[in-house]
């Protein structure tokens, strides 16, 4: 296995996902297979090759700093799971 169960648990925690024991088994196998496949890139000579993040030759796209209309608060809140007093509510984070 190129990816260990411990690693899968670690990345699941980073990804904010819970895994059952069965899922842990399955994802460990799957991720190992995929990572093994991806390891074919290890043999390519990339000495001096610049990485590409983006294919278009554009940088720092600016717009004029002009005030434009935005959305109505009620409209934005309509998709919030819970709300109160015009705000989205969340569980208490400070004791």
């Amino acid at each position, binding site marked *: 296995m190129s990816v260990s169960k411990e690693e899968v648990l670690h990345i699941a925690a980073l*990804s904010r996902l819970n895994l059952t024991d069965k899922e842990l088994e399955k994802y460990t196998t799957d991720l190992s297979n995929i990572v093994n496949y991806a390891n074919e890139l290890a043999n390519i000579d990339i000495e001096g090759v610049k990485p590409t993040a983006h294919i278009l030759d*554009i940088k720092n796209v600016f717009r004029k700093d002009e005030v434009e209309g935005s959305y109505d608060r009620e409209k934005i809140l309509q998709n919030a799971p819970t709300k109160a007093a015009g705000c989205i509510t969340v569980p208490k984070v400070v004791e």
Partner: protein
Amino acid sequence: MDLYSLSLKDIAQKIKSKQVTIKEVLDSVYSRIDEKEEVLGAYVTLTKEAAYKKGEELQKKLDAGEAIGALGGVPIAIKDNICTDGVKTTCASRMLEDFVPIYNATVVDRLEKQGAIILGKTNMDEFAMGSSTETSYIKKTKNAWNTEHVPGGSSGGSAVAVSADMAYAALGSDTGGSIRQPASYCSVVGLKPTYGLVSRYGLIAYASSLDQIGTFAKNVEDTALMLNVIAGHDKKDTTSACIKEKDYTKALLNDIKNKRIGVPDAFVKDGINEEVKQAYDNGIKTLEDLGAKIVHIDLDYAKYSLATYYIIATAEASSNLGRYDGIRYGHRSEDFEDLIDLYKNSRTEGFGEEVKRRIMLGTYVLSSGYYDAYYKRAQCVRTLIIEDFKKAFEKCDAIVIPTAPHTAFKFGEKSTNPLEMYLEDIYTVPVNIAGLPGISIPAGFDSKGMPIGIQFISNYFTEENLLQIAYTFEQNTEFNNIKPNI
């Protein structure tokens, strides 16, 4: 002939010349949908009421002698990862099952401005992650050519809607082949434009450096008409290119004499079904007979595209899907102790298996200790793949390649082994890695009657060239005239 079976161009003309009313057109398409939807499952949401209302408004305008736009009164379907104001946009995920956008994607605004009527939203793989539409949380979409087979994916619903005459055209999105591969599986025309030609504003992000909105249509001419409407700069998408708007129908010349068409022989040698290979070879022969010059090209790094793709796409996905935390919108778990718990339970309940797999893979390749070995290395290989194409386009005007290595497979056949499913994208992924335009058009059938597509790839922002070659191929072959018996 029923109205629903006409092409986009013909129905638009019939509406404009008042041979038919928009209501008659809507009646025809919706009755077709009523008849076939239960079997095929192309749509997630139908927007019938709004469609008729819009139709009435347009008809009034038309009757008053006003212009109703290039697509005036033409019913179109939209993939369910493209935001529609006031209409649920689910990404076929439990996470966004009840999500109602408060704005339109730019492409939807553009379509509506030209008088198109939205029929509904189409099914897809969850968050566009998949090649068969099987990862949809909402429903199963079946291939109209054989309902035991998948339609391809991720834009399976859009492909089926067009192939079964349940829409005159549809929008999809293509991150690694999600338009071209289902177009090939369903025998319709699927176009993935150059990265930046069409605004991504309002497209729910999967992998932002690869995602591109494109079209499904019944033929190449309709594809050009759709592209005319959706292409163009958008200040709301900073990666949208400043390209002058063009009339792509001017490119529809039945002539490819002396066009140099590149064939990447070595790349198409292995892992391809024999019948698909045969159809591909026949396609090359057709091009040659039509006067094109076949040149042999090397795409040495193309074989690394898939590995590169699954590193870059999942890395971007893990970041893009970080926003689904159960707080502002989307699914929130009812069961939690504290905030971290809320995040974890909401995401665990809201995402399906494939989405979780890709989020975790992306998190892995970006994590400390692996970043250089995977993510950064993949970005360097991306550069090599782009350079390969640049060199190829010095020798040829377009590249011809199969769209997918196989025809549509049966449900469940590839869903137990993710890697096997990923391999279906081997011929489509390089185009996204390089950001080039690609088109898949019908090019044959296998011995079981399942469709085979052929793909053309062209240089950046040369969609006219792509459309001309595809149009010529289509005009000189019969495959596009054969319809599924559904």
